[in-house]
C-alpha cells in the first residue's frame, strides 16, 4: 500500500499544469518521431535532450517530457508500418506483417484504430507492471555492494547487443571505447588529469550530450546522404472508421497475452521492445493456429505485436530506473538526461528522488490515455505528416541538433566536436560496430570505475572480490550467457524473421 501512496504523490507531480503541458507536447512530438520513417525513438529523444537542458526545465518536467516522447514513439511507429509497409522504428516491424495487408484491403482506418487500442492495452499493462515490480527490485538492489554493481554493469554491456546482435566482440569493442572516452578529464578520486593533453576544454571530460546527439543525428544524416534511400512511397488512403464493439472485445485476450510477454521481454536485459513484439506475434500465431489468417491482415496479428512493444517499452524502464542500467538505446538516452540533471539513477533514486520517479510513472499512466485519445481522432494529422520527405526532414533535424548543442554552451568548438562524433559514428556503423554500447560506456564509465575502485579498496587489491559472492557470480554467468547466446539464437531468429518477411513479400507479388 506504500506504493499507492507514492503513486498518489506521483500524480500530484504529473498533474502540475506545466508538467501536463510538457507531457502533451511530448506525446505529440513522440508520436510524430515514431511515425516518420528515418527518425527512430532514440534519435528523437537524443535531439530533445539539449533543448530540455538549455530551457532549464526542472528535473521532473524534463523527464516527463522525454518519457512522454518515448511512449509516444512506440505508438507512432505503427502508423508507417500500416500505411507504407515501412516500420517507423524497429519494434514496429512485426506490425507490417498484418497491418499492411489489412490496409490494402481498404481497412486502413480499422487497422490504425486496432493498433492504437492494443498499444493502449499493452502500454497500460506495462506501466502497471512497472509500478508493481520497480519498488521491489529497487529494495533488492539496495543489498548490492560495489563488486555486485561492477558485475551488474558488465552484464549490462554483455547483454546490450541483444540476443539478436551480430558480433558480440564488436559490442565489447564499442563498450570499451565508450568507457575510455569517459576516463578523459580529471580523475574523481585523485584529481589526476587523464588524457587531457593540456587542452582546457577536456579538463571537465567529454560532454556525453554532444556525443549522443552527434552519434545519432549527424550519423543518420550522413548515412542518408550516402544512400539516398528516399524511394517512391505508396501511401494507402485512410477510409472511414467502422469498428464494432464486439470486434474490440474479441481482441482483449490477444492484447493481454501480447502485453504480458512484451513486459517480460522489456524487463529482461538485452531483449527490449523489438523482441517483445516479435515474441508476442509469434506466440499469438501459435495459439490461434490454423483458425487465423496471419500475414493476410488478421486483426490479431496487429494487436499482439503492438501490445507487446508498448508493454516492453514500459518494462525497459524497470532496470533503467531501479538499477541505473538501461537495456536499450532509447532508455540509455533517457539515462543520459537523468545523469545530466544530476540525478543518480539506481535504487536510491526511489527514496531520494521519489518525486521524479513516481512523477515519471504517473505521467506514463496518464500518457497512455492521452496517447489513445490523440491517436484515434487525430490520426489524420499524423497520416498527413508521413508524406514529409526525408530529404527535408533530416536537414531540419540536424538544425535542431545544432541549435540544441549551441544553446547549452554557446561554443562552436562543441558543434565541431559533435560533427566529429557524427563522422566517427558513420564509420562505426559501416563497420557494424554498434553505437549504443559506446554511449552506455560514456554514461556508466564513472560509476563503473568508482565501484571497481571501491571493491578493490575493500579487498585490499585482490581482484577475487569481483566474483566473491553468489549474487556476483550469477551476474557474471548472465554476462557470459549474454555474450555467447547471440552465436546460437541470433542466426536462428534472423532466419525466422527473414522467412516471415519473404513470405509477406511473396504475398505482395501475387
Amino acid at each position: 500500500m506504500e506504493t499507492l501512496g507514492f503513486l498518489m504523490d506521483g500524480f500530484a507531480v504529473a498533474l502540475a499544469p506545466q508538467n501536463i503541458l510538457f507531457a502533451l507536447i511530448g506525446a505529440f512530438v513522440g508520436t510524430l518521431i515514431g511515425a516518420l520513417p528515418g527518425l527512430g525513438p532514440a534519435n528523437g529523444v537524443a535531439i530533445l535532450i539539449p533543448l530540455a537542458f538549455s530551457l532549464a526545465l526542472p528535473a521532473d518536467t524534463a523527464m516527463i517530457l522525454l518519457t512522454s516522447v518515448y511512449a509516444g514513439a512506440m505508438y507512432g511507429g505503427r502508423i508507417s508500418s500500416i500505411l507504407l509497409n515501412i516500420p517507423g522504428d524497429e519494434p514496429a516491424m512485426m506490425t507490417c506483417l498484418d497491418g499492411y495487408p489489412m490496409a490494402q484491403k481498404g481497412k486502413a482506418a480499422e487497422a490504425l484504430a486496432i493498433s492504437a487500442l492494443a498499444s493502449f492495452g499493452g502500454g497500460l499493462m506495462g506501466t502497471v507492471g512497472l509500478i508493481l515490480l520497480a519498488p521491489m527490485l529497487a529494495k533488492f538492489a539496495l543489498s548490492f555492494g560495489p563488486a555486485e554493481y561492477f558485475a551488474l554493469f558488465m552484464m549490462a554491456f554483455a547483454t546490450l547487443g541483444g540476443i539478436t546482435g551480430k558480433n558480440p566482440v564488436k559490442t565489447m569493442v564499442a563498450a570499451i571505447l565508450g568507457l575510455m572516452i569517459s576516463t578523459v578529464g580529471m580523475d574523481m578520486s585523485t584529481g589526476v588529469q587523464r588524457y587531457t593533453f593540456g587542452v582546457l576544454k577536456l579538463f571537465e571530460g567529454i560532454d556525453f550530450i554532444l556525443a549522443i546527439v552527434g552519434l545519432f543525428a549527424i550519423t543518420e544524416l550522413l548515412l542518408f546522404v550516402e544512400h539516398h534511400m528516399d524511394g517512391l512511397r505508396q501511401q494507402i488512403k485512410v477510409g472511414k472508421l467502422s469498428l464494432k464493439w464486439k470486434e474490440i472485445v474479441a481482441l482483449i485476450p490477444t492484447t493481454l497475452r501480447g502485453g504480458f510477454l512484451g513486459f517480460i521481454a522489456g524487463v529482461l536485459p538485452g531483449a527490449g521492445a523489438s523482441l517483445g513484439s516479435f515474441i508476442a506475434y509469434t506466440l499469438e500465431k501459435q495459439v490461434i493456429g490454423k483458425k487465423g489468417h496471419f500475414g493476410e491482415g488478421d486483426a490479431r496479428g496487429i494487436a499482439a505485436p503492438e501490445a507487446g512493444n508498448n508493454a516492453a517499452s514500459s518494462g525497459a524502464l524497470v532496470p533503467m530506473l531501479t538499477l541505473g542500467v538501461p537495456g536499450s538505446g532509447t532508455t540509455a538516452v533517457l539515462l543520459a538526461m537523468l545523469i545530466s540533471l544530476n540525478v543518480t539513477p539506481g535504487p536510491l533514486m526511489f527514496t531520494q528522488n521519489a518525486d521524479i520517479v513516481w512523477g515519471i510513472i504517473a505521467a506514463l499512466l496518464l500518457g497512455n490515455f492521452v496517447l489513445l485519445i490523440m491517436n484515434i481522432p487525430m490520426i489524420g494529422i499524423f497520416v498527413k505528416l508521413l508524406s514529409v520527405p526525408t530529404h527535408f526532414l533530416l536537414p531540419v533535424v540536424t538544425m535542431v541538433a545544432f541549435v540544441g548543442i549551441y544553446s547549452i554552451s554557446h561554443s562552436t568548438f562543441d558543434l565541431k566536436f559533435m560533427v566529429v562524433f557524427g563522422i566517427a559514428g558513420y564509420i562505426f556503423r559501416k563497420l557494424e560496430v554498434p553505437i549504443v554500447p559506446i554511449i552506455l560506456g560514456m554514461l556508466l564509465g564513472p560509476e563503473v570505475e568508482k565501484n571497481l575502485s571501491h571493491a578493490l579498496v575493500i579487498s585490499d587489491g585482490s581482484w577475487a572480490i569481483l566474483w566473491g559472492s553468489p549474487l556476483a557470480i550469477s551476474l557474471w554467468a548472465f554476462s557470459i550467457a549474454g555474450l555467447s547466446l547471440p552465436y546460437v539464437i541470433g542466426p536462428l531468429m534472423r532466419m525466422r524473421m527473414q522467412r516471415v518477411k519473404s513470405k509477406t513479400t511473396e504475398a505482395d507479388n501475387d
Partner: protein
Amino acid sequence: MTKIGDRLLGLSLLVLALAYGWGSQQWPAPFGTLETVGPDTFPMLLAFALGITSLYLMFKPDPDNEWPNKRAFFELAIGVVVLFAYAGFIEILGFIATSILALSLLSWRMGAAPKPALLVAAICSIGVYLIFNNLLSLPLPSGIFEVN
C-alpha cells in the same frame, strides 16, 4: 568479399590500446595514496581488454560492408564540409544565414529540387530563430542580420 575493414579497425584499435595503456603509466603517482588502486587501474584494465578484442578482430574479421562508391564518397565529403562550415560560420554570419545555406545545400544534395529546398530551409530557419529568440528566450547569434 574482402575483410580489410575489420582488419584495419583491429589494427587501429590495437594501436589505440597500446597508446592508451602507455599513457596511463605516465601520470605521477598521486601523493599519499595506497598503491592498490590508482588513477591508472581502470585505464590499464580497459587497455588490456581492448588489446585482446582488437587482436580477435584482426584474426577473425567479418566480411566488409559495402563501402561508398566514388560518387557517394563525394556526396559524403560535401556533407561533412557543409556541417563543419555550418559550425564554423554560425557565429560570424549569424544563425539565419548559415542555417538557410546549410539546410538548402543538404536538402538539395539529398535529392530535393533546389527551389523547394531553399524555401523549406528559409521557413524553418527563420521559424526556429523566432521561436528560440522570442518565445524561449534562448538567443541564437544574429550575425549579419543584427538590428541594434
